[in-house]
């Protein structure tokens, strides 16, 4: 009697579990922190009857480390930055899709289709893009700020009041631009000059921090700080009298992308989600939330004025940014050494 009841219950539980799996699909997202409005996820879940779960990471490297440590096969899509798409492709972590599998593929802005990190968009679609440079408190310093010297050879007024992103890639790329040397250079004299520049700049820096980049500018702990453009716009809206710089030596341009992961348990839903994010109205909701820029045409009618008018999102036409490159192993080893020596 007792045994038959247990069997009956188990069968019921199994049927229920199977029933759930059939009735609605699932989608598992691995994403940056504070980068996706919950309403948008709810909208997708409702429209396609899909149960959505999302985990977050705080750096491209953390994403890679976590997937390498055995999380492959548990997520359907992830949102890595440009150079990390290239690295993940090289590691064989990404699945491919045909443009015909996404009905909204044609919505991708022309300049973002054939990108250097994913030629012809076989693994990824654009999510948001923006720039990385720095912002300066105009109460403290009134001179010209459109030069990377503000960070690497700062004027007297800013010394000891600078926050730098705790991110090797962005710091070394900006330092290379300031010196006018190519990224990932293997020239020994150039690498030595890069090392010297950073060693001499460090005494003028107050702190290293990425997640604090906005707060230190708002609170006044830092009078200048490396920061992403959307984050700078938020800092300005929170009352800091800061100006975001587009330095003449160059600045970093980045793009976050939705990638289709290999061994995705719900490949169909992943593609539905990617297609959903190519819909101008939906991706505009992300832009309004995160204050970066979408890589899709036709978003303008859905954008809030605060976003379209923000000076941080409108670089001067004659200034060009550069993507961060993924360095080959022998250069990366030297970069690691420079970075460790800088922070020892």
């Amino acid at each position: 009697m007792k045994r038959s009841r247990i069997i009956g219950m188990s069968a019921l539980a199994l049927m229920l579990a199977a029933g759930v799996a059939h009735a609605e699909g699932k989608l598992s997202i691995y994403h940056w922190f504070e980068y996706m409005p919950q309403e948008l996820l709810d909208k997708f879940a409702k429209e396609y009857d899909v149960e959505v779960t999302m985990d977050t990471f705080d750096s491209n490297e953390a994403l890679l480390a976590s997937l390498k440590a055995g999380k492959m096969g548990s997520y359907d899509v992830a949102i890595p930055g440009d150079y990390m798409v290239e690295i993940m492709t090289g590691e064989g972590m990404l699945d491919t899709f045909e443009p015909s599998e996404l009905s909204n593929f044609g919505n991708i802005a022309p300049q973002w289709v054939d990108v250097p990190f994913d030629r012809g968009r076989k693994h990824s679609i654009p999510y948001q893009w923006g720039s990385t440079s720095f912002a300066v408190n105009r109460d403290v310093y009134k001179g010209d700020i459109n030069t990377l010297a503000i960070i690497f050879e700062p004027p007297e007024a800013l010394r000891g009041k600078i926050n730098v992103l705790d991110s090797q890639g962005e710091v070394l790329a900006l330092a290379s631009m300031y010196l006018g040397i190519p990224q990932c250079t293997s020239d020994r004299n150039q690498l030595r000059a890069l090392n010297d520049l950073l060693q001499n700049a460090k005494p003028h820096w107050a702190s290293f921090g990425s997640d604090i980049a906005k707060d230190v500018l708002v609170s006044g702990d830092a009078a200048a700080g490396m920061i992403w453009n959307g984050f700078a716009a938020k800092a300005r809206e929170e009352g800091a009298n800061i100006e975001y710089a587009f330095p003449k030596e160059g600045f970093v341009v980045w793009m976050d992308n939705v990638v289709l992961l290999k061994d995705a348990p719900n490949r169909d839903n992943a593609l539905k989600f990617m297609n959903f994010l190519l819909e101008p109205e939906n991706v505009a909701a992300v832009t309004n939330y995160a204050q970066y820029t979408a890589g899709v045409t036709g978003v303008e009618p859905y954008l809030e004025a605060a976003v379209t008018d923000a000076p941080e999102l409108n670089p001067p036409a004659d200034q060009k940014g550069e993507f961060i490159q993924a360095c080959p192993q022998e250069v990366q080893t030297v970069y690691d050494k420079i970075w460790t020596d800088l922070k020892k």
Partner: protein
Amino acid sequence: MVAGIENNNSSNTSTYAGLGSLLILPTWLVIGFFLVLPVLMMLVYSFLTKEFRGGVIWEFSLAAYDQFFFDRGLFGDEPPKIEWTYIIIFWRSIWLAAVATFLCLLVGFPTAWFIATRSGPNKSLWLFLITIPYWVNLLIRTISMKFLIRDTGPLNEWLLAAGVIPEPIHMINTNFAVQLGLFYSYLPFMVLPIYAAVERYNFAYSEAAADLYAGRWATLRKIILPIVKPGIIAGCILVFVPSLGAFLAPDLLGGAKNFMIGSLIEEQFKGNAGNWPFGAAAAMILLSMVLIVLTFYARQQMKQGKR
């Protein structure tokens, strides 16, 4: 249950005789799964070859330990010299942890003494007060500390308004701030074990010492300290070990300008370096150092026991 109470010791022994090894099995499983296995994995990983951008290749290599101890220049082809980088990072962490432990002891001992010598209900109240701040998450407490001591924070504003200082004291992003953070984070770990030791102290000993013309200082040094020493040592270990691996306080209050042991290891797994064997090796070296200190302490204790 009732039978168990009525039984005398010998029959209890016979009930469980032969089950001893079985009964201890869960303990062994827990120790094996949560302690031995992870440490063994770390040990193995530290001797493997690093894979570019994280991960390991299953080939034996001493490269991780070589990187820790030998400096071969920026490009890795100069004759090896002693590598000071990691020694400096370890030394900085050890020094910070040692100072934090000392400060905790300096404040914690009198505090524990004060609490232990109160009468019944007051004692509980004081203990309760000590633990209240620790119901709040460590991250939030560390950030609050940052708000308090920043240049335009309440502490500086108040001192300025009171006319004590002519201009704000710069505290944030200094070693002082890190010390303050560590001290604040781990103080109760010092107070509680010392309190437990002092509470058991028989004050008749103090009276006896006074009868024998020992001054206050002599009584403290020759009678009290030796008796409460186990509590002090337990407190010091409880403060020193977590301070050694701390990176919240150095990151948030010290500005993350310099690596601590904790952040150095984190960088190997989550940062650009992606050097898992080196991270494992650094962790193993740290573990060995802590074990040496604890072994030293254990041997001291055993020697005293014999005497």
